[in-house]
């Protein structure tokens, strides 16, 4: 390509933030559903919430916070021209995301093994509030898990492009926006954790 391409860093970031706001409203809607059903079925929600694995929830919170730290450090590193550091930090972020999803697999396996999944005979026989709780749990956490998967893929692509030198200190909008997406994933989990694992 011989013609110079004009880069609009501020515009790229603004676009990313606008997208993140729609994501906030998407998850906000799910939290709103949770809140209204909690007001309707407080006892059933409390009974169902006590069956959640606090250990998995806490471990995954620490893992995501740490991954978010490394993503933020990667942005600092690229601004300081530390290309190798960026690749290591993003690798650490993606690794944390993979561990997070593996924990999710173990947690969901244990729950499904006990007959807890949408439409399961056990939940169909139980009170309606309990199946609403678990349906919302699988929907919200599943959608969040999908975001972890997308964010991990995005940051892997970004790390490869940093390695090749197409993302560098002079033009790192991709890295910055990828990191912003990852922080949003962390942010959503910060609210999922108390709602599903702690308050009930």
């Amino acid at each position: 390509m011989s013609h110079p391409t004009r880069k609009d860093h501020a515009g790229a970031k603004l676009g990313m933030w606008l997208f993140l706001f729609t994501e906030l409203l998407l998850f906000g809607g799910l939290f709103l559903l949770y809140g209204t059903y909690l007001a309707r079925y407080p006892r059933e929600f409390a009974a169902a919430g006590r069956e959640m694995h606090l250990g998995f929830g806490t471990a995954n919170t620490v893992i995501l916070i740490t991954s978010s730290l490394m993503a933020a450090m990667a942005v600092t590193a690229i601004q300081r021209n530390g290309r190798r550091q960026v690749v290591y930090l993003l690798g650490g972020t993606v690794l944390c995301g993979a561990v997070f999803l593996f924990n999710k697999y173990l947690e969901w396996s244990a729950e499904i093994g006990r007959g807890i999944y949408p439409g399961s005979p056990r939940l169909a026989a139980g009170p309606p509030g309990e199946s609403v709780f678990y349906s919302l749990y699988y929907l919200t956490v599943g959608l969040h898990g999908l975001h972890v998967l997308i964010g991990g893929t995005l940051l892997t692509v970004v790390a490869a492009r940093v390695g090749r030198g197409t993302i560098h200190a002079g033009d790192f909008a991709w890295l910055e926006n990828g990191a912003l997406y990852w922080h949003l994933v962390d942010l959503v989990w910060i609210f999922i954790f108390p709602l599903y694992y702690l308050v009930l």
Partner: protein
Amino acid sequence: MASERTGSHIIGYGTLTAVWIALLALTALTVWVALNAPGIGHVWGSLAIAAAKGGLVIAFFMHMRYEGRLLRWLLFVALLTLAIFIGLTFFDVLYR
């Protein structure tokens, strides 16, 4: 163009690590509150701690503290919209 450099403020590793430690401390606090605080207090306590953690992530990890007025106002409008949705819904649900 000078304006292209706005918003590319560099946040040091030390600041980021301090924020991370604060986030871990708040996580430990929220687990402690959930296990030890009785009654309805722990719902609001847990949500307040989550809001504080979210604020730290947005301000430092997402650089919002160093952004210009446009992004700050947009964030405010987005959060206000969410708050209006939640507020009006509960106004309906709780007082039927």
